């Protein structure tokens, strides 16, 4: 009975923490946001050099051949510092898609270059101002040629390739597109968290390759986000923990009425509630990490449970961290808003909170626990 990470995994986590601290990553995040850089290329290069983009890639494709648990501990540390890099897009989504569903030829071609960083990937699904569904996807693929438009695609500029969710005569297909192909145009879209760039991708009769079976793209996409939700939840826990840590530090050093504001119950109980929300989310994410690493049939429910609790925890903690900081928390100069913005990005990417609550209960209905 052991619901905890191994010593090796904890060591990797500690290494990651030290790395991001040395790189002064939170400052880099602010700079990326303020200067609209979309990505910190230098930080990304170093992350690639550390081999982290190849963690789950089998050794035969030059990867480290490690499991998802290693990815979880990295995700938590990246969440703490709001790392301005396309790690989630390229590793949690694109790499997993190739790894799980692509043909041997494509794997041989793509996976080694994901390790070296020559290839960076993302995933395009959203087309309109509402949740994408199997019914409302309109980007078409016909004999491998894609036409349509995806919006709010994270990190698309830094990415060399995309997995695109398309509709074909046989249903929904996942298709691989190289951003250098003719007919691809990528444009930046303003967003509420510019520390991670978001883009539209126009497809005009663009050549593409099938990933997975024809017509089973929606199932593939669902299992991809079941997996990714676990990794996102660790980023969210990291962000929530960092928000609580900021609030704690401020509550201890800020004085009002001759006392540390952290000695007032209104603040004490607010921070206690943050701690409770993080503990619940963390425990659910640990369980989901186990389900992910063992490919358990629990994964759909476990990942939705982790996702919902982690989304709530990060949104709550980043919101109340601002409140704890009072007027200072509302200034651009303090970092509080960087976490508030990122909490919203992470809550929307992979789909909104209410969609995930619905998904959780749907999972319960399928697994009829009663």
């Amino acid at each position: 009975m052991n619901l905890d990470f191994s010593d090796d995994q904890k060591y990797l986590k500690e290494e990651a923490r030290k790395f991001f601290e040395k790189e002064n990553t939170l400052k880099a995040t602010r700079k990326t946001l303020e200067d609209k850089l979309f990505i910190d290329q230098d930080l990304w290069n170093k992350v690639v050099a550390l081999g982290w983009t190849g963690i789950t890639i089998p050794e035969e494709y030059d990867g480290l051949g490690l499991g998802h648990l290693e990815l979880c501990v990295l995700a938590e540390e990246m969440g703490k510092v709001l790392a301005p890099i396309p790690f989630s897009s390229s590793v949690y989504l694109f790499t997993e898609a190739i790894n799980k569903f692509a043909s041997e030829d494509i794997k041989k071609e793509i996976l080694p270059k994901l390790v070296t960083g020559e290839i960076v990937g993302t995933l395009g699904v959203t087309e309109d101002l509402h949740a994408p569904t199997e019914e409302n996807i309109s980007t078409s693929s016909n004999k491998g040629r894609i036409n349509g438009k995806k919006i709010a695609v994270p990190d698309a500029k830094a990415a060399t390739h995309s997995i695109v969710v398309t509709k074909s005569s046989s249903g929904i297909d996942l298709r691989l597109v190289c951003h250098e192909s003719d007919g691809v145009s990528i444009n930046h879209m303003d967003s509420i968290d510019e520390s991670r760039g978001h883009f539209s991708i126009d497809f005009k009769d663009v050549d593409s390759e099938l990933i997975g079976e024809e017509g089973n793209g929606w199932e593939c996409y669902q299992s991809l986000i079941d997996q990714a939700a676990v990794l996102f939840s660790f980023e969210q826990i990291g962000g929530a923990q960092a928000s609580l840590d900021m609030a704690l530090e401020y509550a201890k050093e800020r004085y009002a009425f001759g006392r540390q504001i952290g000695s007032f119950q209104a603040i004490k109980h607010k921070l206690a509630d943050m701690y409770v929300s993080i503990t619940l989310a963390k425990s659910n994410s640990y369980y989901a990490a186990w389900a992910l690493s063992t490919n358990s049939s629990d994964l759909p429910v476990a990942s939705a449970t982790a996702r919902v609790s982690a989304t709530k925890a990060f949104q709550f903690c980043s919101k109340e961290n601002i409140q704890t900081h009072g007027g200072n928390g509302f200034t651009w100069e303090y970092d509080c808003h960087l976490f508030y913005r990122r909490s919203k990005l992470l809550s929307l990417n992979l789909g909104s909170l209410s969609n995930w609550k619905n998904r959780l209960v749907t999972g319960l209905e399928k697994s009829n626990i009663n």
Partner: protein
Amino acid sequence: MDFNDTKEQAIFRKKCRDWLEANATLKSESSTNSFSEDKSYLDTSREWQKKKFDAGWAMLHWPKEYGGIAATPIERIIWNSEEAKFDVPRGIYDIGLGMCGPVMMQYATEEQKQRYLPAMAEGKEIWCQLFSEPSAGSDVAGLRTKAEKKGDKWIINGQKVWTSGAHFSDFGILVVRHDPNLPKHKGMTFFFVDMKSPGIDIKPIKQITGGSNFNEVYFNDVEIPDSQRLGDVGDGWKVAITTLMNERLAVGDASGADVNEAFKWAKGQDDMGGKLIDNMAARESIADWYCEANGLKNTKLRTMSALSKGDTPGPEASITKIVSANKLQAIGNFGIDSADMAGMLVNENNEIDDFQSAWLGAPGLRIAGGTDEILRNIIAERVLGLPEDQRVDKDIPYKDIPSGK
């Protein structure tokens, strides 16, 4: 119970209405006068204020000698409700007329009132308020800015913060510490100051919204003649607290996306799986927000009823801000989430932009003019008569009060 004017009120309302129709245009979709701080908006504000002043509407509840018409509270409410229907500039004068005016009225000499109040009412001169400091937010009385007496002058050194309109203000009201050896609440003195005085340095504060509606104001050996002192030396807190009460009453409903916007949006929002308004979770949230929004609206109506009977208003303003700021944050979040991943995108859709502004602006509203926590304390102590928190900052010299670093 009825919502009709009395005969007198109806006559007065018509008077307001007639003048407004003759001098302004009704609000419409294409209304332009949303608050901003650029020159052009300042100018139109000045013009409109002057127009009102010449016709006696500027500060209608003020005595005639200062440019008012000695209107009753209910007449003032009637004017405000009518003016609100027109597309006219607002906001620039709120602090001056709402907070600085009253304190001058109460504490300035007759000569000073003659000099400053009409100019204020006419809009020729803009006023601001200088209370908060980096180390004195919720605890305003913890302020440190020093005042030293030199002959018939006071020399001011220190920093104020969260001052709206400091950069375009002509004068400001200011509370400072003249003696750190006295207990906290006894060592303060109140002044008004010429914002163009040498030694005043103004820096805008950038908010998380990206906007800059507030300033830091630095005082380096700024001289204020003793004649500009309001109240006795040591009465600074007494004078400030009356002003703060006015602020708490002035802090109105959180502007921005409200239940009607959420309702309208939910009726239109559809992912081909059904309309958002038919989602019972969204439906119940909208019902809750409707109850809060109308609870506040009807509370204001009850306050006006009391005013029109000559009673004094209660603590409704505190309630209004706690409820509406948190509602604003929740509605903003609801609107953003309802667009799923695309809720991130700015400038794609006006309604979503409004929800995003609500979500980004609400955290400030939960803090400005009294945090949620301070306001709950005020309700608990002033309305419910519960004991105040244990105080460790009373009856000892200010300089000995723990203040961290």
